């Protein structure tokens, strides 16, 4: 890891000020991706601004129809939250299957979505549940937040403060995970509210996205059978040592079918 200057801040305002005065600063949340990336010298920030001391970014609050999770809330906290388990059980389950227990004790929801790894789990939930990403500057619809591989709508000095998830009638997340890393080779989050179905897909393409073809098939016929006739564009799928594009296209349908079955 190259040298850097570490800065701990206790408020979002201080974090933004530290970023604006840094040559090439980076925010660090739980650090479970940031530190390995720096060790590999794929990132070499001049300043590392630690959001871990900002108490206001940590915690879960629930009102009548929304679950709001502070950006620095760990995966372990979301998974163990009895409130989340009741309000959106699929979200608690998703958090409890990220990485491994020690990683879940440090990794955060804000860090996960800001990093936007193509195989991360949370982006599928943000998209399928129609969540809102709250920052120090604005509120960003989940659909518009993930803009490309490791890219988001965030500005350099913008800090995620919380993510709000609307409650839905039924939801389930299914992932076909890499057995070593537990990253999603393909993960599909299906959410149903009234007659409206939303599908969020991660792992399959360079950036998590809505499964519009699957949604069209499932709207009006919410059944595993409805998935069968959907054509998944193989040319848009990732292809790497873990899975070919053809295999990923196949997995998108299998994971969607399993998620639909888990909803009923």
């Amino acid at each position: 890891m190259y040298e850097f200057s570490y800065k701990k801040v206790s408020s979002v305002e201080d974090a933004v000020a530290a970023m604006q005065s840094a040559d090439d600063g980076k925010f660090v949340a739980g650090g479970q991706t940031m530190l390995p990336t720096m060790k590999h010298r794929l990132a070499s920030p001049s300043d590392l601004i630690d959001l871990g001391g900002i108490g206001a970014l940590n915690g879960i609050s629930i009102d009548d129809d929304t679950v709001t999770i502070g950006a620095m809330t760990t995966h372990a906290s979301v998974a163990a939250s009895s409130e989340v388990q009741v309000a959106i059980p699929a979200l608690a389950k998703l958090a409890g299957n990220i990485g491994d227990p020690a990683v879940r004790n440090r990794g955060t929801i804000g860090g996960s979505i800001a990093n936007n790894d193509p195989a991360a789990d949370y982006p599928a939930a943000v998209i399928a549940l129609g969540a809102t990403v709250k920052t120090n500057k604005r509120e960003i619809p989940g659909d518009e937040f993930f803009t490309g591989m490791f890219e988001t709508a965030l500005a350099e000095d913008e800090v995620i403060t919380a993510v709000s998830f609307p409650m839905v009638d039924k939801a389930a997340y299914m992932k076909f995970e890499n057995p070593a890393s537990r990253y999603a080779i393909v993960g599909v989050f299906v959410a149903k509210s009234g007659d409206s179905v939303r599908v969020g897909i991660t792992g399959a393409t360079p950036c998590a996205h809505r499964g519009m073809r699957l949604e069209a098939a499932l709207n009006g016929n919410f059944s595993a059978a409805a998935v069968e006739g959907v054509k998944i564009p193989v040319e848009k799928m990732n292809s790497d040592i873990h899975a070919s594009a053809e295999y990923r296209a196949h997995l998108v349908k299998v994971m969607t079918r399993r998620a639909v079955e888990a909803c009923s």
Partner: protein
Amino acid sequence: MLTVKMSVNGKPVSAELEDRTLLVQLLRENLRLTGTHIGCDTSQCGACVVHVNGVSVKSCTLLAVQADGAEVTTIEGLAKNGVLHPMQQAFMDNHGLQCGFCTPGMVMSALDIVKRNGSAVDEATVRKELEGNICRCTGYHNIVKSVQAGAKSMGG
């Protein structure tokens, strides 16, 4: 350089460190607590697992300064007055180690598992929860037995 202070195995510790120093480096190189191992150095193998404020973390993926003010427990902090912790004893009794390299991380993760799942934790849960700890002797069967036996004896 910065000054980092924390409690390690109940003792106050203070060190002048480069900002980029990892917690595992502080433990091993400054404090000479070499029971915490560096295996993969990419937060996958779990040989470096310690407890920070009561929860398991991979000390190769945490800056020492991020544990400033924290209470850190390493494998060296478990035995009391020369008597092994029940979980350590269970690993010994159940042949839960072969080469022993992964064992400190296994024991520290095991204690985290018992804390969250209780002393009657079942085999399937132990296997799933140990997914962040890798044993290259592949001695998982006896490790799982050890964790369950240790959990039981911790529960009295």
